[in-house]
């Protein structure tokens, strides 16, 4: 309260002393971004935690309760206007398995739908870094973001949403973390690093996730599509393909095994010398069925006995 009154005094004084128009203060919050962060129903716990992490990292966010599935997406525009937000970050869970994120510039667009995978939240113990809550991140983009028009559009949108505005009342004054956005096989990989020392020693804070862009629309949550990802396969379809291919592979591998067995089957199971069997006789047979020689001997003996 005191400081406020002081300020007032000072301003009054300046007005009295000089008649020039007051200089624009450098300490102004000009870049007024407000992001509405919320989710639809049917979210997984991990996705909810990710959303919580993003909320802690974005001091310029506004919360909003879960949206019903039955409502159409265009309602989000009204919600944002009600909350005085000009950006939206919407989490959409499907089947408690897949996560989609909508990012949108409210009123005039564009909006983007991403499929998200490889999520690691900030709570994981292997991510050992830490940063001030609400300090401004440095944003680092891959040079490939300038090569294609859709990537440069995505870059602008990402930097507007994830960059904390200068002089935002809830932000902290120092720079202790970096976000990296890297393009690898058509996806955008997000990482958050703590700046341990300014000569380039970093530790990871988290969260980690990978954004797979699906579609870019001209307007916010609607309008004609500007770009579509030709390589995108929906997670459900991908899972089904995997299942089918596993089945097919199983059948094919069985057939191949059979063929291979047939081809590599040896002609003789054991190498036997046929001469070995000519002279040796089976000892069991010999006992059971006495040979002709032995029989003759026996007969002779008998005859001899009789004659005696």
């Amino acid at each position, binding site marked *: 309260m005191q400081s406020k009154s002081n300020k007032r005094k000072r301003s009054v004084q300046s007005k009295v002393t000089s008649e020039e128009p007051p200089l624009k203060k450098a300490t102004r919050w*000009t*870049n007024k971004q407000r992001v509405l962060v919320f989710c639809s129903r049917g979210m997984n716990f991990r996705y909810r935690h990710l959303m919580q992490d993003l909320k*802690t*990292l974005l001091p310029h966010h506004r919360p909003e309760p879960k949206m019903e599935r039955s409502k159409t997406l265009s309602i989000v525009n009204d919600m944002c206007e009600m909350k005085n937000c000009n950006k939206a970050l919407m989490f959409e869970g499907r089947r408690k398995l897949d996560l989609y994120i909508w990012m949108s510039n409210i009123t*005039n*667009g*564009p909006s983007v739908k991403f499929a998200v995978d490889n999520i690691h939240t*900030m*709570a994981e*113990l292997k991510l*050992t870094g*830490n*940063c*001030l*809550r*609400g300090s*401004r*991140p*440095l*944003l*680092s*983009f*891959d*040079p490939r*973001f*300038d090569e294609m*028009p*859709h990537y440069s*559009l995505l*870059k*602008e*949108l990402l*930097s*507007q949403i994830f*960059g904390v*505005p*200068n002089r935002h009342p809830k932000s902290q004054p*120092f*720079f202790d973390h*970096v976000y*990296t956005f*890297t393009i*690898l096989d058509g996806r955008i*990989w997000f*990482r958050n*690093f703590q*700046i341990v020392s*300014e*000569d*380039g020693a*970093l530790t*990871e*804070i988290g969260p980690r996730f990978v954004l797979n862009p699906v579609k*870019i629309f*001209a307007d916010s949550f609607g309008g004609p*599509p*500007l*770009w*579509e*990802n030709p390589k995108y396969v929906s997670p459900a379809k991908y899972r089904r393909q995997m299942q089918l291919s596993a089945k097919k592979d199983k059948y094919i591998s069985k057939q191949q095994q059979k063929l291979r067995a047939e081809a590599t089957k040896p002609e003789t199971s054991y190498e036997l010398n046929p001469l070995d069997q000519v002279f040796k006789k089976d000892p069991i047979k010999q006992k059971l069925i006495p040979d002709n020689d032995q029989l003759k001997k026996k007969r002779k003996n008998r005859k001899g006995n009789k004659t005696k």
Partner: protein
Amino acid sequence: MKIKTRKKISESSDSNLSSDSETELQEAFAKGLLKPGLNVVEDAPKTFVNDETALKEKLLEFKLKLPWIETLDSLNPPAPLAPEIAAQILEQEEKQKSLRSNNKKLPTISIENDPVLNDFKREMMFYRQAQAAVLSSIPKLKEMKIPTKRPDDYFAEMAKSDKHMQKIRQNLMQKQVGKERSEKIKQLRLQRKEGKALQIQTKLERQQEKKQILDRVKKIRKGVDRNLDFLNQDGVKNTKKDGVKNKKALEKRKWRNERFGHGGKKRGSKMNTRESSADVSNYKRSAKPGGKGGLKGKAVRPGKNRRNNLKNRRK
């Protein structure tokens, strides 16, 4: 949409244009376009929208025209590979190699396709990109005279709570302790192995010695050899050992000799003499039978038979 032609034909036969479509089909068949069997209508290849001009227009429309300090964004390729990171990558590579060579059950994958190693390399790439951003942006901020580093006495709420950081620290400690312990155990195991090897060696040596002696004895018995020196050598060794060992026993012998005597005549030493028989100092009158004297106070316990009888009577 996959439609069998038979179905199509049946549908078309219901409609008014049946004759037309049928004739069309007949013509197609005659030309050889249709073949007997199932005919499937295939999808047209899907076209993906990529409206570059509209994308550029949109970008211009919503792009912020603000100085860099408002956004803090930068495009940068990964920083050059620092030697310590290169060392880390090499270390990981060796670790994976040794893992694969030691465990035959793991699938054999070439080192370039190793998923674990590739993961590590990818993470390192992200790390280097972040490094490049730091190295380029922090000097810019310093030029603008904006404080970048948090002073040690500046406290504020952190993204991760103290409790969580404690957990992380504990986890790290646990990992380190586990590593140390496993190393210790490894060393112990090695020591034990060496000890065992030594034991076996000495045992074998002794056996060999014994065998040699026995062989020599055999030779002497047969009269081949007449040299008995080797026995003396061993004998000297043994007596020396015994002398050291039985110091206590010798002392004991000495004491016994003092007490019980050593040498001299033993016969008749336990016989009575005139003096011994006259000595009555050790004599005590025996207690009177019936327990009248000293046993009065004590409860008398009858014999076993009587006790049993008493028990039976009570029942």
